[in-house]
């Protein structure tokens, strides 16, 4: 979707503000928000793609005005409600009011090290060979789905070159919406800066994205 998250090339946000010796957390609640988000994911009711889509579905005026852990927290509340674990009334009240859905698992302290070390690999085998090879010229599709996609707006309907075949991975556009993992080949596609940004583009610039096969058409 063309949501507030799709920021590449937007203007007006001002300078980047690096912070010397930045702490990992700027408030205590950020620590809990991180832990709650990872613990929520461990319940097994949603995947990373649904989680990302929930964040990008926050209305633009709220998304762009929120700190990152606030975005995470808002999305976590939506996910918990959607999957029947809590009600908004319970969150407002700060206490249990009803029984909710039963999770697949609950992340306990003694599981944390193993779960973090294992991660959640997203590579999956596909039966067909890759459609494109390194060196192939391709064009990204021009679409504007209202659903989740990982093809950023700035890189749509652009011509580039396949630099590498990266393997086959879960297709987020389907996986975010409960339509299955439906893995596809993923390619690193490189674009000349001028192809994307046109007049005035930095002549030394090239930009690459990692694109699922169905985002690409042969040129």
């Amino acid at each position, binding site marked *: 979707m063309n949501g507030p998250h799709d920021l590449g090339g937007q203007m007006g946000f001002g300078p980047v503000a690096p912070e010397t010796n930045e702490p990992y957390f700027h408030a205590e609640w950020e620590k809990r928000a991180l832990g709650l988000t990872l613990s929520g994911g461990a319940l097994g009711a949603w995947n990373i793609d649904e989680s*990302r889509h929930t*964040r990008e579905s926050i209305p633009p005026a709220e998304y762009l005005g929120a700190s990152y852990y606030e975005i995470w927290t808002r999305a976590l509340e939506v996910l918990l409600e959607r999957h029947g674990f809590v009600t908004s009334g319970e*969150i407002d009240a700060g206490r249990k009011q009803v029984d909710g859905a039963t999770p697949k698992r609950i992340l306990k302290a003694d599981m944390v090290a193993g779960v973090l070390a294992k991660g959640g690999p997203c590579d999956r085998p596909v039966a067909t060979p890759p459609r494109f090879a390194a060196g192939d010229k391709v064009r990204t599709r021009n679409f504007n789905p209202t659903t989740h996609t990982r093809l950023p707006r700035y890189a749509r309907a652009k011509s580039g070159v396949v630099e590498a075949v990266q393997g086959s991975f879960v297709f987020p556009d389907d996986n975010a919406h409960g339509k299955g993992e439906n893995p596809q080949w993923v390619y690193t596609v490189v674009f000349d800066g001028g192809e994307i940004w046109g007049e005035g583009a930095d002549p030394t610039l090239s930009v690459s994205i990692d694109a699922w096969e169905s985002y690409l058409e042969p040129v």
Partner: protein
Amino acid sequence: MHDDDHHHGHDHDHHHDHENRYTDMQARVRALETVLTEKGLIDPAAIDAIVETYETKIGPRNGAWVVAKAWSDPDFADWLRRDATAAIASLGYTGRQGEHMRAVFNTGETHNLVVCTLCSCYPWSVLGLPPVWYKAPAYRSRAVIDPRGVLAEFGVTLSDDKKIRVWDSTAELRYLVIPERPDGTEGWSEEQLADLVSRDSMIGTGVASMPGVAA
């Protein structure tokens, strides 16, 4: 927005509350944690363990060791080029947001810069949690269109003829920039070399420190 139109008057106060309830994030998150704990859905001790892991165990030092080894050991550098996931895992750095790694090497001709324009994808297992600026709109919007301007704000000035390659992490691949090894470090130990490698140099918003200047 049919629902909003239909319920506007009725829901006005509710929406108002809904916005305001986020003004105190400390209270909001505490309420959420309390509910989830009462319902048996989370273990607060697990949250403590997650926070402790990312505050004390997983940070940019992991990545610095990868870079130092790449500078010191051509075979390891070659392995990184071919299969960064396996090469990095051989040092014990595996897991969440580092499941699929790629290493990209700066050269005399090309400087690499990593961004995630769509969210905040970042190689947690080798760099730890990302800084606020990496996740913020200013960086995510400009890194792909004005990387030289962004670099200038980090105090990095590249020569005019240096090529800039921006890697937008739009899939599950996580990128680690291998900065150029500073001159004057011949014969240095991996530990000495790792001290020259900053987090920013592994994102591409910095370069490795020169000898005698701490990273």
